[in-house]
């Protein structure tokens, strides 16, 4: 399996492909509407020289735009998730449960929390599928 550098467009394409190819995802996410942006705060000590913004868009089981973007586009998403690199890495490796991370303030979420909680299975599935992407993390290089 090819490995991808985290937070690159190629890596996002690989992640999108995993989601789009999952029948299980399509079923779980059939009611989900709207975009989620992910902001990874800059951490030069971990080889993240600048803040990374990603925009991901989902609609009733379909996966739409999945791109590295700028701050303004990230701000335009229905849900805006923000956190330090170390936390996102833990989430991406399933070492940290996303719900727990939010409750404990390790990640921030702007948006309709009740919607996310109601659709938590969709969120978890998207993260599960990310763990299937062979990822090279910036501080592991």
């Amino acid at each position, binding site marked *: 399996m090819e490995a991808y550098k985290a937070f690159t467009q190629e890596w996002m394409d690989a992640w999108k492909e995993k989601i789009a190819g999952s029948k299980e995802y399509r079923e779980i996410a059939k009611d989900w509407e709207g975009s989620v942006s992910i902001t990874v705060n800059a951490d030069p000590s971990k080889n993240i020289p600048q803040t990374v913004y990603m925009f991901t868009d989902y609609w009733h089981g379909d996966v739409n735009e999945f791109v590295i973007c700028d701050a303004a586009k990230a701000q335009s998403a229905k849900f805006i998730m923000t956190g330090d690199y170390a936390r996102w890495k833990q989430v991406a490796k399933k070492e940290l449960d996303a*719900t*727990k991370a939010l409750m404990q303030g390790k990640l*921030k979420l702007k948006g*309709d*929390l009740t919607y996310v*909680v*109601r659709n938590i299975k969709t969120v978890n599935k998207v993260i599960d599928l990310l763990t299937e992407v062979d990822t090279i993390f910036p501080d592991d290089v």
Partner: protein
Amino acid sequence: MAYDSDLSFVYFGPTKVVFGGGSSTSELESEISSLGCSRAIVVTDQGIIKAGLSENIIKTLGDKCVGVFSDVPQDTGIDVVNRGAAFAGEKGADIVISIGGGSVIDTAKGMCILLTEGGSLADYEGIQLLTRPQTPHIVIPTTAGTGSEVTWIAVIYDKEKGQKILIVESHNAPRVAILDPQLTIGLPPLLTASTGMDAMTHAIEAMTSIQREPLSDAMALHAIRLLSTWLPECLKDGRDLKARGQVQLAATMAGWAFGNALVGLVHAMAQSVGAVARVPHGVACGILLPWCMDFNLSDGEPETIAIYATVAEALGLSARGDDPGSSAAAAVKGSFDLLEEIGHPMKLSEFGVTEEHITEAADLSMADGAIINNIRYVSEKDEVLDIYRRAL
């Protein structure tokens, strides 16, 4: 797993608790001063004012009270919080004192954010968005159940969206909770029983949450001990100050427990049947708790059996070393018995709930966020419907 070698968690409970009969008047001023504040806005509701619960407190504050905001309905809304914050801002308030139940406390929590950050409350929908401590908040609860005095969650109705929004901010946890049992002696029996069972449900569900950990377990276990002993005493004699105080403390402990470990199936189902058929929250929790415990136990998982055996110990129904299976079963039976002992409603139909209601509520339950924390994974709507039917 809560006690495994890979255990890692954060326990958060920064609220100072001041307890004692009469403390709502005797301790309030010094708590305000020790927070470096001097201009208090009091948030309460008309029911509390009519019951005479806020009068002495406001009198004690003297000119430290710069205004009273009492326009808080049963279920508070964004517009209410915005109005309250504007009023408090005009008065130059530097601290918020809430006197009341869940709706009043949540209104005050929202006001604290706006007094610090400005804007409309709708801008703060989300989780952990704030980066600094908010306007200090002292809570003086007049009920014993929600635990809201020590949690950092506010539930506020958004009229425009037609739904409740959640604001979860650890920077906005109340600074002080003043627990004065004298304020709860006038609670009528049904409200005493049902709010007490809400607290019991917080404690037991925190223990069977997949987020459980030893510190929240400790809070939950002592809450269960106190509730099983003293809640019946409150029902025998509502003016028993000692019993009222112990139940109030139990509710606060249960608040810390579920504030950290979260709640599960009972709350998913209680919130859903509350939304569909307007069954009061505590009543729905009380009725559904034993049935959900029975459901959780019936898959024979050793971990669930062990937890409920510990609950049975706390309920005073078994001893350490007893057969775990029989102890766990005793916990379920004990929960039914407690309902009977305190004269709590036993069936949802007593509140007009019908088969149609529970069919709709079962759908909502499956989509409720609390269900995912439940120790037993609930995969089918029919499982929920079956529990509702038993409790109907």
